[in-house]
C-alpha cells in the first residue's frame, strides 16, 4: 500500500468518525428539545403525566447510550470493558430497588398528609 493510498483510506475513516460525532451531537440536541417539549406538553395538558415521564426518562437513557457508544468509543471498546461496566449497573439498580420498600413504600401515606407518616407494612 502506498503512503498516499494509506493516507486516503485513513482520512476517509476519520471523516466518517467526525460525521458520526456530528450526527450524534445533532441527535442529542434534538432529544433534549424533545424532553423539554414533553414537559411543556404536560403543563399544557396535551399529554398526561405518565406518558411524559416515560418519554423524558426514555430520552435520557437514549442520550446517555449515544454519548457512551459514540463519544466514549464504546462501539469499539465494549468487548474489552463491558465486564467493568455491567456489574456496576446491576449493583446500582439493585441498590435502588432494595431501598424502595423502606424509604418509598413505607412512607407513602394514603392517609391524611397532615398526620405523620405511618408505615403501611403493618404492625410489627
Amino acid at each position, binding site marked *: 500500500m502506498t503512503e498516499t493510498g494509506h493516507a486516503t483510506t485513513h482520512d476517509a475513516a476519520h471523516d466518517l468518525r467526525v460525521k458520526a460525532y456530528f450526527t450524534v451531537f445533532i441527535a442529542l440536541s434534538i432529544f433534549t428539545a424533545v424532553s423539554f417539549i414533553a414537559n411543556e406538553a404536560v403543563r399544557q395538558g396535551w399529554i398526561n403525566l405518565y406518558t411524559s415521564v416515560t418519554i423524558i426518562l426514555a430520552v435520557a437513557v437514549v442520550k446517555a447510550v449515544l454519548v457512551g457508544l459514540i463519544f466514549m468509543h464504546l462501539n469499539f471498546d465494549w468487548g474489552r470493558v463491558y465486564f467493568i461496566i455491567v*456489574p*456496576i449497573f446491576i*449493583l446500582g439498580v*439493585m*441498590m435502588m430497588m*432494595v*431501598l424502595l*420498600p*423502606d*424509604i418509598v*413504600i*413505607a*412512607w407513602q401515606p394514603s392517609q391524611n*398528609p397532615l398526620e*405523620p*407518616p405511618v*408505615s403501611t*407494612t403493618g404492625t*410489627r
Partner: protein
Amino acid sequence: MSVSHSHSAETHAHHELSFLRKYIFSEDHKIIGIQFLFSGLIFFLIGGTLALLVRLQVGFPKGVNLPWFPISWGGRMSPDFYAMAFSMHATIMIFFVIIPLLTGAFGNFTIPLMIGAKDMAFPKLNMMSYWFMWPAFAVILSSFFVEGGAGASGWTSYPLLASATMPAGEGFHSPASPHSGYGQICWLVALLFVGVSSMMGSINYMTTIINLRAPGMTMFRMPMTVWAMFITAILQSMALPVLTVALILQLLDKTINTTFFLPPGGAAFGNWHTGPGGGQTLLWQHLFWFYSHPAVYIMILPAMGMVSDIISTFARKHLFGYKPMVLAIAGIAGLGFIVWGHHMFQSGMDPRLGTGFMIATIMIALPSAVKTFNWLGTVWGANIQYTTAMLNALAFVAMFVIGGLSGIFMAATPVDVYFHDTYFIVAHIHYVLFMSSIFGIFGGIYYWFPKMFGRLMNEKWGKIHFALTFLFSNCTFFPMHIIGIAGHPRRYYDSTLYRFLDNVQPLNQFMTISAFLLALVQIIFLVNFFWSLFRGAKAGMNPWRSNTLEWTAPSPPPHGNFIQTPIVRRGPYEYGNPEAEEDYLPQAEPQPSGVPAPAH
C-alpha cells in the same frame, strides 16, 4: 518542583534519590507498603488502648479493687467517655488498622512482586494514596481534643444521635449528644479521607493486576494473595462511593442544615425542620451498611489469600482446589453486596426485605466452607513445618470457623432478634476480626518480614507471642458468646445495674483481665519486630523455600524489583513433586528435565 524531579529520577535508574524522596515521599510500592505497615501498627496500639479502657469499664464499672492485685482504681469514667472509647476503638481498628494493614501494607508490598511487575501501575497515585491517610490521621486524633470530644455515637454513627444539633444558634456547642458536635464532624471528615485513599489504592491495584503481569503469569497462575487483593480492590471500589455519599450527606446535615436523615415532626433541634418535609434515619443505615458489609469482607479476604499461600508453603503441598478457592473468594465478595440488611434486622425495616437478606447471608456460608475445607485439604497428610507464620495461619483457619459459625446463628432473623446488640455479636466481630484478620496479619508479617527488611524475625519469641496471644485472645473473646446468650447487651455503661446480669459479671472481670494480659503480650511482638529490624539474622533470598515470584528477588528487593523480568512457567503451588529434585518448584524456574510440564 518535586514532580519534575521524580520524573527524571524514574527514568534514570542510577540517579540517587534524597532521603526524603527515598523513604518519606517514596513512589516505590515496597516503601509505601512499609509506611502503611508502620502507621497501621501505631494505630493498633491506639485502638488497643481504647479497647482496654472499654474493658476496664465493662469489667469493673465501679472501680478496681481486687485483693490479689496491687493497684486499685476507684475512679469511674463518665458514660460519655465510655461511649467515646468504644466508638473510637471500633473506628480506629476498622479504618486505621485492619484495612490499611491488609490492603495498604500487604497489598502494596506483595502485588507487584508476586505478579512480576517493576512497580504499581501508577506510583505517584500510590504515594498520594498513602499521604491522603495523614490528614485522616491528624483529624481523627485531633477529634479527641476538640470541644465536646471525639465521636461517641458508635462507629456506626446513626442519626439522630450523630446528626442533630441542639437549639438554633447554638450550633455545635450544644449538640444532640455531647460528642456529636465537632468530634462527629472530625469523624466524618477523617473517614472521607480514608475513603479517598482507599479508592485511589484500589484503582491502582486493579489496573496493576489486570495489565502488568509478567509474561506467562495468566490470571489462574496468580497466587491466592493476589487474587484476594484483586477481589478486595473490586469490593472497595464499588462499595466505598456509597459510604462517601452517606458521610457527605451526614456532614451536610450537621453543617448546612439539610435534612437527609432528619425525619419530619418531632423535637426542636436547631438544624432540623419539621413539617411534612424531612428525611429518614433508615436511609443512613441502608447507605452505611451497603458499604460496611463489604467492608468486613475487605477485612478478611486479603487475610484469607495470604493464609492460603502461607499454608501451602509450610505444608510443602499444593493448595487444595485452587480454582474453587478463587471462585469462593469471588462468591463471598459477590454475595457480600446483597446481605447488608442483616445488620438492620432490628431497625424496623420491611421484614420481607429481611427475609431476602437472611437467605443471602446464610448462603455466604457455602463459599466460606469451601475455603475452610480446602485449607484442611491442603494440610491433610502434609509434613507441616510449624514456623511462626504457619502457626498464625493455622490459627486463622480454626478461629475463622468459630467466627463463621456464630455468623450463621446471627444470619437467621428470628435468632438475631434475640442476639442483636448483645455480646454475642461482639464475640463474632472479634473472632473474625481480631482472631482471624489479626492472626492473618501477624502471619503475613512473620512471613514477609525477611523480604521487606532482609532479616528474619526471631522464631522462638514469635512462637511464644503466638501461643500467648492465642491463649489470651480466646480467654478474652470466647466468654463473650456465653454472656451474649445470657442477654448481656453491648455498649452498656454499667451492667451491674441489672440483676439478671449478676451471674455473668465474674466472666466480665475475667475477660478484662485476659484483655490486659493480651495487650501486654503484644509487647513481645513489638520488641521482636523492632529488634529484628536492626539485629535480626540476615535472610537470604528465599528463606521459606517458597514458589511465588517475590522470593526470586533480593531481600529486600531493589527499586524495580527484579534484575530481569521473570518468565512464569507454572502455577504457584508446585510443591512436593516426587519427580523433582527439590520439594518446591518456583514459578519462574525453567522446567527441570525429567519433570513433566504443567497442564495450564
